[in-house]
């Protein structure tokens, strides 16, 4: 009996070895990680939303082509994505995120575009213990509600437009009066509230502080209200209304020293405004002309990760036939963050990836990324800084978008708004 037992044990052992060998002979099993999100494919936020999807897709293509991410247990992770159209509308956001997590088995989430939608989605992410990277949810309030799994890629609203005040100070030290006109939505209102505080702190006088409804097309009532000697006009909202505002400022011949607006100016499409675009300053999360590089990272003692700016711009332009805007970069970097965190954690387990994100402090083509990891404002982006661009005319008279602020990143000096002849 005893002998038989030994034989059996030996046989079993051999069998195990063979099995193990055959497993090892195959390539390490590739795990599939699903990135789930809803996007504004239709509805009012469709342009911003689509760029973000493009950016994310490009990242996925790159990481998969490079063989995916290797985990600590030797297995390899590849990515797929799944998304639904939220129609730029809160109605079904929670339903879709629940579906993404439960039915489509999404392991990681990317936020919808806009703060209101993101807040709704974050509740579901928390409930299901999924990490959500936000792109396009700039309001600070989202991160001060006590969520623990939400991470922001964009510079928050509170630091969005404050640089414009510094630009004004540089261009005209004697300037005093700032007028602020903004869209009445969560994002723009948050931005200008902090802007107002900042400007007042610097001794400026806010001569007009008013909001307009989403979808406003006629800005003449505001423009007629500006005092003649206003030094700067700041504010705006999303693309459509802000570009209308810029156009009407021009038609009305309003040319203060600084006009700094949200969202629209960095978009390549803004150039369609022609003459009206000249001199307009815009705050941008990222620009193709941005000067982030592995060397810059080394100088700041930060780890560099991902493609260089040039690589990203080239790959994006080749694939989508348009120049990337910061929304595209935001989509890409959302993926990049997930990739980096998984690689560092060596796992796709939420807790471990969360720890990696909490500790993250890296430089990418998109700039410095670091999150607030205190409970009061968990996930708030504290590393990344805004870039300010200005539409200027080159010697041939063509419109070019130049980076003018901060000083160390500029491609051209900032100029005062050209006066009407």
């Amino acid at each position, binding site marked *: 009996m005893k002998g038989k037992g030994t034989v059996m044990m030996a046989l079993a052992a051999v069998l195990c070895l063979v099995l193990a060998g055959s497993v090892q002979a195959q390539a390490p099993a590739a795990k599939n990680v699903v990135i789930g999100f809803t996007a504004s494919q*239709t*509805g*009012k*936020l*469709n*342009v911003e939303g*689509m760029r973000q999807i493009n950016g994310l897709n490009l990242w996925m293509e790159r990481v998969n082509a490079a063989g995916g991410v290797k985990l600590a247990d030797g297995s390899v992770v590849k990515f797929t994505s799944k998304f639904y159209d939220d129609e730029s509308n809160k109605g079904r956001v929670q339903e879709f995120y629940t579906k993404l997590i439960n039915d489509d088995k999404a392991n990681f989430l990317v936020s919808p575009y806009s703060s209101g939608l993101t807040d709704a989605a974050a509740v579901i992410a928390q409930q299901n213990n999924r990490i959500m990277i936000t792109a396009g949810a700039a309001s600070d309030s989202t991160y001060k509600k006590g969520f623990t799994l939400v991470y922001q890629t964009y510079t928050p609203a509170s630091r969005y437009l404050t640089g414009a005040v510094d630009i004004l100070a540089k261009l005209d030290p004697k300037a005093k009066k700032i007028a602020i006109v903004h869209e*009445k939505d969560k994002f723009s209102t948050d931005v200008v509230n902090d802007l107002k505080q900042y400007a007042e702190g610097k001794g400026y006088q806010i001569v007009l502080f*008013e*909001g*307009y*409804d989403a*979808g406003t*097309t*006629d800005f*003449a*009532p*505001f423009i*007629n*209200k500006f005092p003649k000697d206003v030094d700067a006009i700041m504010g705006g909202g999303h*693309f*459509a209304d802000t*570009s*209308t505002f810029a*156009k*009407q400022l021009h*038609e*009305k*011949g309003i040319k203060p020293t600084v006009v700094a607006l949200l969202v629209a100016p960095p978009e390549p*499409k803004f150039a*369609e*405004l*022609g*003459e*009206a675009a000249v001199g307009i300053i815009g705050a941008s999360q990222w620009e193709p002309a941005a000067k982030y590089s592995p060397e810059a990272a080394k100088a700041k003692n930060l780890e560099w990760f991902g493609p260089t700016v040039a690589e990203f711009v080239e790959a994006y332009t080749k694939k989508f036939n348009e120049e990337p805007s910061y929304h595209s970069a935001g989509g890409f970097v959302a993926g990049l963050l997930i990739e980096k965190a998984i690689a560092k954690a060596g796992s796709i387990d939420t807790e471990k990836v969360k720890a990696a994100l909490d500790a993250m402090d890296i430089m990418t083509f998109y700039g410095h990324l670091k999150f607030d990891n205190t409970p009061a404002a968990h996930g708030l982006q504290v590393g990344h800084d805004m870039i300010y661009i200005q539409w200027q005319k080159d010697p041939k008279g063509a419109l070019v978008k130049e980076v003018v602020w901060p000083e160390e990143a500029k491609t051209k000096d900032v100029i005062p708004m050209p006066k009407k002849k």
Partner: protein
Amino acid sequence: MQLLTSLIDGLLIGFVYGVAAVGLTLIWGVMSVINLSHGPVMALGMFSTYLLFTNLGVNPYLALIAVAVFGLVLGLVIYAVAVHRVISAPHLSSLLATFAVNMIIIGIGTAVFSTSPHNIDFSLGSIYLGPIILPAARLLAAVAAILFTVLLYLFLYFTRPGKAIRAVANNRMAAELMGIPSAQVLALSFGIGTALAAVAGGLIATFFPFTILSGGPYELKSFVICVLGGLGNPLGALLGGLLLGGLEGLIPTFMPVSWVPVLEFGLFILVLLVKPSGLLGAKT
């Protein structure tokens, strides 16, 4: 001075609002249908002007003629497909039928044009009248709006089909007894109504950027204007447009702009309650 500039700005745009509202009120007056596809048709008018201008280089003001024809044809199609069957049904049916058309246009429009803003880059500069600066595009739009209204007036009062439309509006039964083919007249009125919407859209496109969703707010304004001027009264609608434009110009000089819609719709409800025949009250 600010007051004057604001008022003129408002009145100029009021003419354009007026044209859109005249279209809406004409349809209401003739067949008691509230056309919920008015906004999307305006948006289509904007896009037609845009496409003609950017692809064929047609001057946007000349393009208006083509846009008007396009609007007319579109109106005839919408009438035949969606409205004719429910013309005698309760209000809800025609409301929902035109709303369905609204969804179809927006749905296809979003797929084709996306909801990104488009812009006609055709700058006419500004006109300086002393201290008052007026964008030339708005001035021209107002002129074009007046022109189209005059044309409509001439048509309604001096041509046979125009007279037939007025007869049907007055009393459809009686008109039919007099041998007026009411189905054709209804279709024509609907076509003219949507043509005006498309033209108003084309005019708006010359000075505001627009998206496929842009028609919505103007449709709402058209409702307000129609009620101010008296539902079914084209002249009232034009004056209502001026009134609304003037208010939009003036109110902001006294209070924050964001209160304008509160007052606008408040006035709208008030007029409905107190004088449903409209401020002009010409017809009941």
